[in-house]
């Protein structure tokens, strides 16, 4: 192959541009271009450059993060598929596996929020059903700029509308949203979409092009000029104006995706498929090269057979288009006819575009020319790996910032009113169908973790989706650890045992040392915490270059932790808290303010949070699960952002009851604010009937501190200390502030 003349390739190039300019266009640096020439022993064609540019983009190659990701614990007795495939898979017994992943669609959602978010949902759903699994729940994590920013309502309504339009039509419940606002997202909003599905263990499919002479089928929607070079765009920062970097926007078609799902699952069921991969970032290119590489095979593809929306598309356009709702399948020649029948039944395109070869070479033919001749392994395994600089030293832990910080409760309540991140999300979640599927046991906004029945199984999964950019900014490692600990506690409040983690690392430019430092420490923290709880990380996504004009976003690690509940009839909900229920606090008392929402913006730099202890979390989680499964606990809120105060407000809002508390049992008078606002210790607020307290206290004995704080009662929220009223407010006033302002705020803009 090496002796093939360069000339025959360069005739296909646009002669007005130099090779270097082509390389730049493909998002490659000059060093990378030289590396290609060295590897190939020749000058690549324009199509080849486009292909390599996409495959070597940060988005597809993980060139900055791969080295660090290798520290994550990815195996375990229940892990069926870890990172590396379209999604991770966990054995849940009874012959079934759950398949899940979270994926970012940040850049597209900033340029066109509706379509960007919609296609993000489409992409993650395809990642799940390419594995053979039927998706049964969706969730999302959204970050927007500061509320006063003019574009925020437009972006929020666009993103929410896009997710709603895609998920609702596709017919999978969207069961949870985690939404926050911060000025660092002014120029880079975040859209992370999570999906989970279920499959018979032995029916999991992989993205491998195995079996020489097997046919390669293109199925789904036609190819248009959508999002050409989107992967490269997603690997760059926004400069002045996002408009200058606009490929044709990809438009999602959930109607086609739903048909594609049914057609694929039918094809899988009839055992007609050898390997399959969706066409996501870098479209046909990525699926061809990854499928060939995973099976160490080659592929011979004829682009003349690819179904097109516009017949004038070039080979370059076809290879790099990111048109949605498409899949590449490798199948035995004898099954082609039946597959065509299936896809035709659903009104979808199904084209035979080539075959698997034994020589490891990807050959692409278009209109009488061979336009590509590359070894898949050569391109993928030789993708650059960068050891981006970072500071390895971890900021010292533990510096008390109790003294000198003075917050009174009334001020904190006032500040929550203005912090939209703390608001009730019904405005958003009511736009998502969260009932379809008859499986939603505990849905959005009524508990910390949702609980969803696994279709065709007695079991259920509990999901917790968390992120805390401000805390990760202060201390990325401890911030990441706490997210996993918090999520583990949250799923335990539904009686579920943590079984797997997926994560999305949303960061600024890795070429920026502080960003790379945070990225490295966040991964290390995640690895430590996941290891200490023995919960594997089975899938994830990295989204870098989220910065505008040199301003990176907060280090936003999104953690979605999946728990498995064997007895889904036992669960907690805020609304299960009843008049005269006891309010009980489980866990240690905080002794400083680090990371507390109430003071976080005023913290001096260099402060660091106290490290939480993994063994203590395991112990707390076990007690919570026991308490829920023994029907002792009706309602629970893990104390997180906004401290104990916000947990109290959530329970009052969910139950419609006031609360009467005396905090003398947990703190001296002058530390009331600390007890209410600090987020520095793992704590869980519970509501339970009086007569069950003793049984729970018994479970906690010598393991975890437990304190009764008061009871749910009446119309007033009163905080006392040794009988003296410190703060009181009508519960309706508090609840109204908590429940409505997101909607009002949007309406008023």
């Amino acid at each position, binding site marked *: 192959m090496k002796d093939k003349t360069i000339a025959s390739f360069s005739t296909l190039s646009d002669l007005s541009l130099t090779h270097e300019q082509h390389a730049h266009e493909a998002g490659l640096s000059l060093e990378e271009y030289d590396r290609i020439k060295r590897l190939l022993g020749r000058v690549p064609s324009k199509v080849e450059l486009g292909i390599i540019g996409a495959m070597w983009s940060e988005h597809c190659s993980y060139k900055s993060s791969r080295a660090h990701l290798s520290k994550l614990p990815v195996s375990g007795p229940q892990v069926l598929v870890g990172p590396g495939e379209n999604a991770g898979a966990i054995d849940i017994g009874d012959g079934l596996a759950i398949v899940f992943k979270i994926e970012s669609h940040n850049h597209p959602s900033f340029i066109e929020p509706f379509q960007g978010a919609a296609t993000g949902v489409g992409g993650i759903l395809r990642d799940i059903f390419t594995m053979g699994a039927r998706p049964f729940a969706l969730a999302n994590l959204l970050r927007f700029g500061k509320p006063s920013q003019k574009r925020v309502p437009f972006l929020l309504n666009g993103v929410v509308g896009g997710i709603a339009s895609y998920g609702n039509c596709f017919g999978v419940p969207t069961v949870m949203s985690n939404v926050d606002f911060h000025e660092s997202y002014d120029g880079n909003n975040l859209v992370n979409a999570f999906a989970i599905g279920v499959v018979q263990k032995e029916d999991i499919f992989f993205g491998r092009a195995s079996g020489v002479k097997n046919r390669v089928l293109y199925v789904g929607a036609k190819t248009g000029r959508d999002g050409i070079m989107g992967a490269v765009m997603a690997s760059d920062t926004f400069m002045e104006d996002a408009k200058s970097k606009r490929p044709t926007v990809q*438009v999602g078609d959930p109607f086609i995706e739903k048909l594609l799902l049914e057609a694929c699952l039918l094809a899988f069921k009839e055992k007609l498929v050898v390997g399959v991969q969706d066409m996501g970032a870098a479209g046909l290119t990525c699926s061809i090269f990854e499928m060939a590489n995973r099976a160490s095979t080659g592929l011979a593809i004829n682009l003349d057979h690819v179904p097109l929306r516009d017949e004038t598309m070039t080979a370059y356009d076809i290879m790099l288009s990111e048109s949605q709702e498409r899949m590449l399948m490798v199948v035995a020649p004898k099954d082609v006819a039946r597959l065509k029948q299936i896809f035709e039944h659903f009104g979808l395109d199904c084209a035979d575009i080539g075959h698997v070869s034994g020589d490891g070479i990807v050959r692409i033919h278009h209109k009488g020319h061979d336009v590509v001749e590359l070894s898949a392994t050569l391109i993928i395994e030789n993708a650059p790996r960068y050891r981006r600089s970072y500071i390895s030293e971890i900021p010292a832990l533990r510096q008390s910032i109790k003294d000198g910080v003075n917050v009174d409760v009334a001020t904190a309540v006032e500040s929550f009113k203005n912090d939209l991140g703390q608001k009730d999300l019904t405005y958003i979640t009511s736009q998502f169908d969260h009932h379809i599927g008859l499986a939603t046991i505990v849905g959005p906004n009524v508990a910390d973790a949702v609980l969803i029945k696994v279709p065709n199984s007695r079991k259920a999964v509990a999901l917790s989706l968390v992120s805390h950019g401000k805390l990760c900014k202060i201390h990325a490692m401890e911030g990441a650890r706490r997210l996993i600990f918090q999520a583990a506690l949250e799923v335990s409040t539904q009686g579920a045992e943590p079984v797997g983690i997926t994560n999305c690392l949303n960061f600024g430019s890795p070429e920026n040392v502080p960003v790379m430092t945070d990225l490295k420490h966040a991964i290390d923290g995640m690895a430590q915490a996941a290891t200490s709880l023995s919960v594997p990380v089975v899938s994830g996504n990295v989204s870098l270059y989220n910065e505008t004009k040199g301003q990176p976003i907060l280090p936003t690690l999104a953690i979605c932790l999946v728990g498995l509940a064997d007895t889904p009839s036992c669960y907690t909900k805020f609304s299960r808290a009843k008049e005269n229920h006891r309010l009980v606090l489980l866990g240690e008392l905080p002794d400083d303010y680090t990371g507390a929402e109430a003071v976080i913006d005023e913290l001096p730099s260099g402060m660091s949070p106290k490290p939480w202890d993994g063994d203590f979390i395991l112990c707390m989680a076990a007690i919570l699960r026991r308490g829920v499964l023994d029907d002792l606990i009706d309602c629970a809120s893990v104390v997180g952002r906004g401290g104990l105060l916000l947990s109290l407000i959530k329970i009052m809002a969910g139950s419609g009851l006031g609360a009467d508390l005396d905090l003398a049992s947990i703190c001296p008078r002058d530390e009331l604010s600390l007890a209410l606002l600090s987020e520095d210790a793992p704590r869980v607020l519970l509501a339970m009937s009086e007569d069950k307290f003793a049984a729970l206290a018994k479970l906690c004995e010598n393991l975890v501190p437990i304190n009764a704080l008061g009871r749910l009662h009446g119309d007033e929220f009163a905080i006392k200390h040794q009988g003296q009223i410190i703060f009181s407010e009508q519960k309706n006033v508090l609840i109204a502030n908590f429940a409505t302002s997101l909607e009002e705020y949007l309406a008023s803009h």
Partner: protein
Amino acid sequence: MSKKTRVVVTVKKDVLDPAGVAIKKELVRQGLVDIADVRVGKVIDITFRHNGDPQKHLSLIKAVSHNLLSNPVVEDFALISDDE
């Protein structure tokens, strides 16, 4: 007396129009076999009160057509003015 302006918003040529694809299929099924393409857009009919300034209206409408009535990332627009 009153003045009407019609803004026609259409999906850009290279952008997928799923509604158009679905409608085309049905029209072909119903016998319109010669159809090459179907695209769906929007019309926004704006009626003014008699006493406004037509010139001022037009320039304002152009401005809002660009950033409010259409989404320039995926759509084009055209203005049709029409006295009654």
